[in-house]
């Protein structure tokens, strides 16, 4: 069983296996430039906002995700495990490389 993950910023989708984090599945896209950091919820580079679908949340650094952020679905992709199909936006340091890597025709 796997879930479909939609990156709203680009319209791309990718599959995330049950129990797998959003970041791990995104790493499998093999996209050069996605800033994978510590993969442990500490460094804050893989920040996303989940706009649809539930995720189980592992503990992550309060220095990067405040309670107010959490209420808006913001979290670190390395600590979010989808429980359903998910739509997300990329934030912070993740934004530029994800958007940059999309073919130009795709962004018109």
């Amino acid at each position, binding site marked *: 069983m796997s879930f479909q993950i939609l990156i709203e910023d680009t319209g791309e989708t990718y599959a995330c296996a049950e129990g797998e984090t959003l970041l791990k599945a995104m790493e499998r896209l093999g996209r050069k430039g996605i*800033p994978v950091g*510590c993969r*442990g*919820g500490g460094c804050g*580079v893989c920040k996303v906002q989940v706009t649809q679908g539930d995720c189980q949340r592992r503990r*992550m*650094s*309060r220095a*990067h995700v405040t309670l107010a952020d959490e209420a808006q679905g913001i979290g670190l992709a390395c600590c979010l495990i989808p429980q359903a199909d998910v739509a997300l936006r990329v934030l912070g340091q993740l934004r530029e490389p994800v958007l940059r890597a999309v073919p130009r025709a795709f962004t018109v």
Partner: protein
Amino acid sequence: MALSAVLRPGHVCLRVLDIEAALKHYRDSLGLIETARDAQGRIYLKGWDELDWFSVVLREADAPGMDYMGFKVLNEAHLARYEAGLKAFGCKVERIPAGELDHCGERVRFDTPTGHFFELYCQKDLFGNGMGRLNPNPWVEGLKGMQAQRFDHCLVYGDDLDGTVKLFREVLEFDLTERVMDGDFMVGAFLCCSNKAHDLALIRHPEKGKFHHASFLLGSWEEVLRAADLISMHDISLDIGPTRHGITRGRTIYFFDPSGNRNEVFSGDYTWYPDHEPITWTTDQLGRAIFFHDRQLNEKFLSVVT
């Protein structure tokens, strides 16, 4: 190996998000030995060849990073001398009572211009390395994981690099072994109180008080490769390596603990003496200075900190 009254890096206190997950990492993967737990729930560990009771303290918190790093000093007289020097330099200095950390005497805690906290102390209980001091064996059996011998050094990031370098050189009598220069502007400094290539490393960074890694010593390049095997076998988040540093010549691999604090295990450097001229690296050669084989700047290694 000490050549000054500051003997060596004695401990590092790390914040972790989940203390049991962290213990599993530091004990079973890195191979440190658990030696105590205190009333606050902090866990104490040491490398197998360290004699004092602990060198790593794990504290559960809601954000990872380094609380402080401690250096052991020869005796009370030098501790008092350094304390006076730190105050004269303008540091915020505080005495932490004996026993606040289990098995550790009174500590002199101070802040630095880069926004980190360090400590000096001169007493810690003896735990031993399991071999005694009379006709000992060369190593102990039954070790786990990477079998780290000792906590060796930290690399920290902060803004006022010149200020912290001045503090460690002038007040604490450290030597500058290597530096990274952008023209006349220092961006990296490697400092030692002993005979090693570094006991503390500093990189200039806009934010104060950041932690890059805590490093642990292994016995050989073969053991660094074995650590790399364990990183895959234990599904640990790999950063980079195994490879070679230009700076310090260390043979190295970097990875992350389950809370995102970076660790290094490494083998080999060179013997430093205070009459040596520091080694200088220029930023146009920074790629090979950091990773001598790749010769490429690695954005993640440079920018990911806790």
